[in-house]
C-alpha cells in the first residue's frame, strides 16, 4: 500500500491568517471568540458571539478580477491553500498537474453572497442580481478556485458532510492516492458561515452557547460558530522523499461511519466505529495513540457521547490519552473544522505541545477523561486522532503518525 505523508499546511481562522500564528495562539491558549462585529446587536436572540476572522483585507491577497469571483469561503480556502502549497514546495507543471487532486470539504458554501442577493430580492425588492452570484455561491467554488489558481488539473470536487466535511475530504483524497489515481492532493475544508440568516437558524436549534464554548466542562452551554479554512498537501512518501521535501507527518489512516439514527443527536456507537476504523486502517494499536483532537463542540450531548465513544474504543488506555478540543479558540468552523483541527494534531506531534481545552470550569461526571484543561501541556506524542462528527449522523476520523 502506498504510504501518504503531509508536506504542507495552511490555515486561516480567528486565531490568525497563517499556520505559525494559529499554532502560536493554540499553544498560548488564546481564544478568538468575541462579539460578532458584522451583525448589528439586537438582531440575534442569543449571545451574539462567534470566532470571526479579524483584520482580513482580501485586496492584499487577490487582484480585482479574481476577487470579483470570490465569496469569503473561497478567499479563505485560497489563502490556506497557497500557504500549504508554498510550504510543500510542490509545483504543478508537466504530468504533476493531472496527477494531483483538489478535494475541499464545505458545509454550507457561499452564504454571505447568497444572503446578500436574497436580501436584495426579498427585502429591498431590487430586481437586478449580480451576474457572478452563482459562481461565488456554488459549493465547489473553493475547490475550483484552488485548481484554477494553481493549475491543478486532476480530480477536483467538493465534499459535503456538514461538520465532518474536512475529514471526509481528506479521506477521499487519501483513498485516491492509495488507489494510484493521483500522487498528490490539496485537501481540507472551508467555511464562512457567520451571517444573520445562518446564525438565526443555528439559534433556533438551541445549540449555540450564550456565554462561550467550554467543551467537556461542567456548565457548558453549547457551541460557538467560527469561520476559516485549513488546507494540507498530501503526497506519497516516495514522492516526498524523491523531492527531498520536509515531511510534517504521515497520514496513517482514515475511518468513516454513519449513525443511521437521529438527524441531530450524536451516537457513541457511530463515533466509536469511525475511530476504530481509523485505527485499523492506520495499523495502529489504541495504546499507540497519545492525543485526540476531539470534536468537542461544547454541547451537553456531543461531549458526553464522544467521551463514551473514546472509552469504548480505548478501554483502559482512554485515561492515558491527552484529549482536547480547540473549538474554544477557533470556534466551530463546520466544513473547515476538521482541517483546522488536524493542524493542531500535527503541531502536537511536531512540537510536543498539546493545545488546551479552554474555558474549562470543572469536571462533569459524564466527561471523565483528561481534557488538558485551560493550559497547554508539553508531552511527546507519536500518533494522534482528529475526530469530526456531523449533524446527519456522519462521522469521519483521521489518524496521523510521526514522520517516517
Amino acid at each position, binding site marked *: 500500500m502506498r504510504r501518504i505523508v503531509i508536506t504542507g499546511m495552511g490555515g486561516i481562522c480567528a486565531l490568525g491568517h497563517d499556520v505559525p500564528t494559529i499554532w502560536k495562539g493554540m499553544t498560548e491558549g488564546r481564544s478568538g471568540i468575541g462579539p460578532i462585529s458584522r451583525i448589528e446587536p439586537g438582531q440575534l*436572540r442569543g449571545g451574539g458571539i462567534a470566532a470571526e476572522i479579524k483584520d482580513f483585507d482580501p485586496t492584499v491577497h487577490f487582484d480585482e478580477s479574481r476577487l470579483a469571483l470570490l465569496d469569503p469561503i473561497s478567499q479563505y480556502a485560497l489563502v490556506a491553500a497557497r500557504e500549504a502549497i508554498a510550504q510543500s514546495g510542490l509545483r504543478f507543471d508537466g504530468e504533476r498537474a493531472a496527477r494531483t487532486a483538489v478535494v475541499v470539504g464545505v458545509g454550507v458554501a457561499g452564504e454571505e453572497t447568497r444572503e446578500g442577493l436574497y436580501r436584495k430580492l426579498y427585502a429591498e425588492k431590487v430586481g437586478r442580481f449580480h451576474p457572478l452570484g452563482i459562481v461565488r455561491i456554488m459549493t465547489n467554488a473553493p475547490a475550483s478556485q484552488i485548481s484554477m489558481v494553481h493549475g491543478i488539473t486532476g480530480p477536483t470536487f467538493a465534499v459535503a458532510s456538514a461538520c465532518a466535511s474536512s475529514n471526509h475530504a481528506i479521506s477521499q483524497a487519501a483513498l485516491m492516492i492509495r488507489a494510484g489515481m493521483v500522487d498528490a492532493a490539496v485537501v481540507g475544508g472551508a467555511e464562512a458561515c457567520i451571517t444573520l440568516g445562518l446564525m438565526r437558524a443555528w439559534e*433556533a*436549534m*438551541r445549540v449555540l452557547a*450564550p456565554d462561550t464554548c467550554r467543551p467537556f466542562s461542567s456548565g457548558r*452551554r*453549547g457551541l460557538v460558530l467560527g469561520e476559516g479554512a485549513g488546507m494540507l498537501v498530501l503526497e506519497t512518501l516516495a514522492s516526498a522523499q524523491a523531492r527531498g521535501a520536509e515531511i510534517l507527518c504521515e497520514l496513517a489512516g482514515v475511518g468513516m461511519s454513519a449513525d443511521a439514527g*437521529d438527524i*441531530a*443527536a450524536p451516537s457513541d456507537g457511530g463515533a466509536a466505529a469511525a475511530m476504530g476504523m481509523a485505527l485499523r486502517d492506520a495499523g495502529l494499536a489504541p495504546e499507540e495513540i497519545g492525543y485526540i483532537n476531539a470534536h468537542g463542540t461544547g454541547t451537553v450531548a456531543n461531549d458526553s457521547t464522544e467521551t463514551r465513544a473514546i472509552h469504548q474504543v480505548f478501554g483502559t488506555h482512554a485515561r492515558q490519552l491527552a484529549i482536547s478540543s480547540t473549538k474554544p479558540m477557533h470556534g466551530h468552523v463546520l466544513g473547515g473544522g476538521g482541517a483546522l483541527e488536524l493542524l493542531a494534531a500535527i503541531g502536537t506531534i511536531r512540537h510536543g505541545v498539546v493545545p488546551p481545552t479552554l474555558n474549562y470550569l470543572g469536571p462533569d461526571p459524564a466527561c471523565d477523561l483528561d481534557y488538558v484543561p485551560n493550559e497547554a501541556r508539553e508531552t511527546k506524542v507519536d500518533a494522534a486522532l482528529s475526530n469530526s462528527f456531523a449533524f446527519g449522523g456522519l462521522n469521519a476520523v483521521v489518524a496521523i503518525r510521526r514522520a517516517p
Partner: protein
Amino acid sequence: MSTVQQETFDIIAKQAKIELDTITPESTLKDLGIASLDAIEVIFDLEEHFDINLPNEDTDMENGTVGLLVEAIERQLAQKNAQG
C-alpha cells in the same frame, strides 16, 4: 388548570402524537418520549402559538418538567403584556 397550561398540553400532545391525559405537570419531555429535534420543535410550536421567545435556560430538555415549561411561558407572557 390554567388556560396556558391547557394550551401547552394540547400542543405537546399534538406534536408528540400522544394522548392528552398522559401529560402531567411533573412529566419531563423525555418521560413523554419527546427527544432531540422533536423537543426543539415542541418549544418552537409553543413560541409560535404564544408569540414569545423562550430562552434556552428555560427549556431543559433532559430534566425540565412540563410544569416548569408552563411557568416559563407564563413569565414570558407577563413580560410581554407589561411591555404592552
